């Protein structure tokens, strides 16, 4: 019998997390390369509803895994449920999106089974019959091809945006859905989660901005943010920042771009002194044009920049403000 790839689809707040479609695309690609079967699992309260939706995609089977103990999410319950499913179905490879929720339970699940997770992958290669997963290391300065040296099941998680969710292939007919009930004993779940909430209404909605000037560590001091603001004003754009700037309180949290902040796709993203850590890049790589100014020529931000300026932002930005003003006045 052929080996099986199992994609674990994520539910969050009673909704199917859209990043799951990307993982299904990844699963279909690996299935095509290896000749393995593809299956999916939906775990939790509304599992059967979402299982029917997932079953429209090209795959062999979908499991709807149910237990009253799965809602609300806890790492203890989800890991216990999946361990039962995986032990029963014995897939070779288990794929998930690298979400905060997956990061919360998948290392526990793999450890409970004596296995490992290759986390935050951006792609895979199937070379001479060997499957390797590509992931970023050293904050994106290097890529690594990583293989499993343990027995199955193998666990891998994919970074948001690594595959296109809209490329998930539909099946000729709906895949069969099998309902699996799992037994989670009393006492397994130790954490008591409260309601999910949003801190304050986001005052600034950067997702609608056409031009964003964003600052990172290279700005050095809070008072220097003023020149970035002047550039943003001259361009008619909005000011944003990478996480360390907001952690320092130099700009409010609602101006943060990245995995823990907003995801933006403006016409122009001008990155000043931003090195381009993965957590930042996932929030802005969809921008139509990226201009990066950084004094470190090896900064990962240059990997995704359309225009690269290697230099000191304090030298570059003041004349740029003047030139932009001149251009605007002349137009």
């Amino acid at each position, binding site marked *: 019998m052929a080996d099986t790839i199992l994609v674990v689809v994520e539910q969050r707040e009673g909704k199917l997390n859209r990043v799951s479609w990307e993982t299904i695309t990844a699963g279909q690609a690996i299935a095509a390369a290896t000749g393995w079967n593809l299956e999916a699992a939906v775990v939790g309260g509304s599992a059967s509803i979402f299982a029917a939706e997932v079953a429209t995609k090209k795959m062999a089977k979908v499991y709807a895994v149910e237990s009253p103990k799965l809602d609300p999410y806890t*790492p*203890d319950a989800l890991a216990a449920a999946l361990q039962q499913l995986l032990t029963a179905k014995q897939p070779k490879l288990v794929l998930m999106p690298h979400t*905060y*929720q997956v*990061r919360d339970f998948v*290392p*526990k699940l793999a*450890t*409970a089974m004596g296995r*490992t*997770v290759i*986390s*935050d992958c951006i792609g895979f290669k199937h070379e001479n019959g060997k499957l*390797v997963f590509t992931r970023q*290391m*050293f*904050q994106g300065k*290097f*890529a*690594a*091809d*990583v*293989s*499993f*040296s*343990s027995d199955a099941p193998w666990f891998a998680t994919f970074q948001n945006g690594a595959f296109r969710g809209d490329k998930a292939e539909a099946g000729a007919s709906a895949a069969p859905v099998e309902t699996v009930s799992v037994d989670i004993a009393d006492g397994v779940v130790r954490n*008591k*989660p*409260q*309601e*999910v*909430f*949003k801190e304050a209404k*986001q005052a600034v909605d950067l997702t609608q901005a*056409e*031009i964003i000037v964003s600052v990172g*560590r290279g700005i050095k001091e809070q008072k220097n943010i003023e020149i970035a603001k002047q550039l943003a004003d001259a*361009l008619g754009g909005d000011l944003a920042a990478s996480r*360390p700037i*907001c952690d320092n309180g130099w700009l409010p949290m609602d101006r943060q771009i990245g995995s*823990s902040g*907003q995801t933006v796709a403006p016409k*122009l993203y001008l990155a000043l002194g931003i*090195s381009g850590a993965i957590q930042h890049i996932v929030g802005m790589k969809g921008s139509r044009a990226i*201009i990066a100014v950084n004094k*470190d020529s*090896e900064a990962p931000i*240059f*990997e995704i920049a*359309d*225009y*690269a*300026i290697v230099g000191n932002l304090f030298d*570059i930005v*003041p*004349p*740029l403000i003047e*030139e*932009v003003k001149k*251009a605007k006045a002349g137009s």
Partner: protein
Amino acid sequence: MKILVCMKQVPQKDAPLKLNETAAWIREDVSYEVNEPDAYALEEALRQKEKHGGEVVVITSGPARAQQVLREALAKGADRAIHLEDNAFVGLDAFNTAKAFAAAIKDETFDLVFTGLQSDDYGYAQTGVILAELLGWPHATIIMQIEKNDSGIRVKRELEAGFFQFVDMPLPAVLTIQSGINKLRYATLIGIKQAKNKPLRKVTLAEVQSAIGENLQKIERLYVPQKTKKTEHIEGTPVEIAKKLVDKLRNELRVL
């Protein structure tokens, strides 16, 4: 509360990194610093101790150079340190690193273990959660606030897209700490002086060897990522660069 903080020494953020002859790791003759989220984990542990009393112990693994991270932590106020000292620890996967830590603390009793949420080198985001499972303790990840209460602790988890959640959990527990949970302190001169007399326990590879096994995953090769985008470098004096950029903004990007 007795708190263990797991810390890691990583290459400095702007250190130029080069591959070594194996092409599966970097040349290690670079400058190092403490992994940033771990610094926040330490700060949080010190603040919890200041509120509730107890002890803060810091642990790291790596060659002699990694001791610097522990010395800085002791200077900031940690009470004692544990150093798993061997270059071989650098190459362990998250599973084995957690196993080595668990073995090194088997005779200790902690209420809490903190780690940073991920490291700037491997970026696994796994070691803390694996350690919790090995210890048989509950855990919570990406923590932005910790309050002690009668039954244990209430923590604030950061979720994606600006959402948060409070979680009540019993002790002992493992928490992975998010950057920005607090404001970092600097070591004082007197702190640096006192650190010299604080206990630092060294653990050899041989002492924990029986607990660890072969890595479960292997880095086949490390390489500079292939560019998927064509990047145009804009060079010249600052004024020339500004003029060229404005031309791009106007004629190619059409945003001016």
